[in-house]
């Protein structure tokens, strides 16, 4: 495929070429079905990966595309998780509406927060997001009458999905459920990123001052994407609650915010599949090493972070893209990154 240079073609054509599905994407999504066949004993892990991937995708929207650094994104994940848990605990165990309610609740919180976020950058922004995350954690910890505090929220009981599919012990329903939620929200993100709105976000990431100078005020854009991202993180948290039927304070803590950042950076920020790949690698590796002391687990993660920052600035996917985009890479793998074979001439 002779790739059209975006500088020559119009912005509209460029966006359209980005929207087209590539062969590799189809292969990727088909391969997410493999766990049902190949590793049926690991479906619980697979659903955890899908949830983490959704969380990473939500962070990618603000960090990778709009350039908003957040050290407290677990706040929205946890808020969604607790909302879903509380809704189910107080007698409404229907999963889909619970998911919707949690997403809306987290989105509202994100919308309120976005007025603060859009005003700051650099260290103040890092500190405010960090402080906000810790604030919510402390709030959940001290409001133990509502949240169960350090003991976690007890008595979350989910109704079967559509009244038919029970959330079973082996995670069959859980994986279907979280995979479909992930896929649908991935489609939303994909559409969003390849829209003019998505292009403005990237402009803000690259140079917010210049974006204002050409008439694209950055704050409303940041408010919008932050709200969307918060809602997605809330949905991810709610999915975790519904598939595990428990909520603990761990959904809000700093480690979760840091982990998700690591996952995204490892996979490649600013790429839709970065968080997805990162989540799969990270979660599988952690499961692999779960026998050792959790404090030692941070050693490989730390080394990996240092190595990624120093040697692989665009993450694993960025490194792979560089290989594939080289001349030899195009000859060997061009068919994978190109559009689907039967759409190639359209």
């Amino acid at each position, binding site marked *: 495929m002779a790739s059209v240079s975006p500088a020559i073609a119009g912005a509209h054509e460029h966006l359209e070429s980005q929207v087209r599905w590539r062969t590799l994407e189809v292969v990727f999504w088909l391969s997410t079905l493999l766990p049902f066949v190949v590793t049926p004993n690991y479906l619980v892990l697979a659903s955890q990966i899908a949830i983490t991937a959704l969380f990473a995708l939500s962070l990618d929207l603000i960090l990778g595309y709009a350039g908003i650094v957040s*050290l407290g994104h677990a706040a929205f994940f946890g808020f969604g998780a607790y909302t879903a848990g509380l809704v189910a605990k107080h007698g409404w165990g229907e999963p889909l509406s619970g998911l919707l309610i949690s997403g809306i609740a987290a989105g509202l919180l994100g919308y309120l927060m976005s007025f603060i976020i859009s*005003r*700051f950058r650099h*260290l*103040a922004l890092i500190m405010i997001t960090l402080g906000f995350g810790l*604030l919510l954690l402390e709030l959940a910890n001290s409001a133990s009458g509502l949240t169960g505090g350090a003991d976690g929220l007890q008595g979350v009981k989910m109704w079967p999905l559509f009244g038919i599919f029970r959330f079973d012990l082996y995670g069959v329903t859980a994986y279907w459920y979280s995979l479909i939620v992930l896929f649908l929200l991935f489609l939303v993100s994909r559409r969003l990123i390849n829209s003019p709105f998505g292009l403005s976000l990237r402009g803000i990431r690259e140079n917010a001052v210049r974006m204002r100078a050409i008439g694209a005020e950055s704050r409303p854009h940041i408010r919008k994407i932050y709200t969307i991202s918060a809602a997605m993180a809330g949905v991810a948290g709610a999915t975790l609650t519904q598939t595990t039927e428990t909520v603990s304070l761990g959904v809000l803590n*700093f480690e979760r915010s840091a982990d998700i950042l690591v996952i995204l950076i490892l996979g490649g920020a600013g790429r839709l599949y970065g968080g997805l790949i990162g989540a799969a690698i990270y979660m599988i590796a952690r499961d692999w090493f779960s026998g050792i002391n959790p*404090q030692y687990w*941070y050693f490989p993660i730390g080394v990996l*972070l240092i190595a990624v920052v120093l040697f692989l600035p665009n993450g694993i996917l960025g490194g792979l893209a560089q290989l594939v985009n080289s001349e030899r890479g195009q000859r060997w793998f061009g068919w994978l990154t190109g559009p689907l074979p039967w759409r190639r001439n359209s």
Partner: protein
Amino acid sequence: MMTSVLGVLFDGFAYGMLLFLLSVGLSVTLGMMNFVNLAHCTFGMIGGYVTVTLMNSWGWPFLATLPMAFIAAALISVLFERTMFRRLYRATDLDQCLLTIGLVFVSVAVAAFVYGTIQQPVQLPSYLRGSLRVGDLTLGVYRIFLIVFALVVTAALVAALEFTRFGAQVRAAVDNQRMARGLGINVDSAFAITFALGSGLAGLGGALAIDIVGLDPSFALAFLVYVLIVVAVGGLGSIGGTFAAAMLLGISDMAGKYYFPAIGSFLIYLVMISLLMWRPAGIFGRRT
């Protein structure tokens, strides 16, 4: 009632001194190079473990281990600065955060591997233990020592920055790095020395903190939040601001834990966020 208020003030003041020692280096280096060094508390932890090792395995007296804590933290920080940090001075905040948080993770794991995850015991010499009675007030001798020690260090720092040639160079670099370079000041070497001194002070703070807050591998992460609050609220590169913020945080943390144990840390974060929203560059910060 009055005595308990004074007691809390005194303990908070001592705690604030500790926070000041731990964070002043970060404030100055952040002001100079805009390098977000989340691994600053790692150097504090190194200082703490040096003191513990020298005292418990080698039988050194407590006071003699303090200079060693300073030197060890400073040397290791220079090693990190030369090999890793300096490559990222022009990188984004995010890259700097990630690299240094990676270092924190590695240091936490290494400390857990070498020393285990338990709290490290130290036996203070007898002249630092016990307490003094002033009127109705009971003051811990170690806390008095801590306050005096930190005040002396602060005075020395301020004097060095105000009255020496090197201090003038550092102040120039904090005010305007490019202009300082243009005037022929070797900002890189000034920065390297400041970085080592700041990390050394953190090491000292870590060593002094053992008796007050304990020492285990989570030190590097647990204190990171406090140090960042002090630096962000105090304003980058401002020693006076850092001092004021450290006192404010130390006293309000103590008071919060004493009078409102359930929501103490909640209040701290709320105050930090409000202060930052009011003045994003910190109380005494000049730049935005």
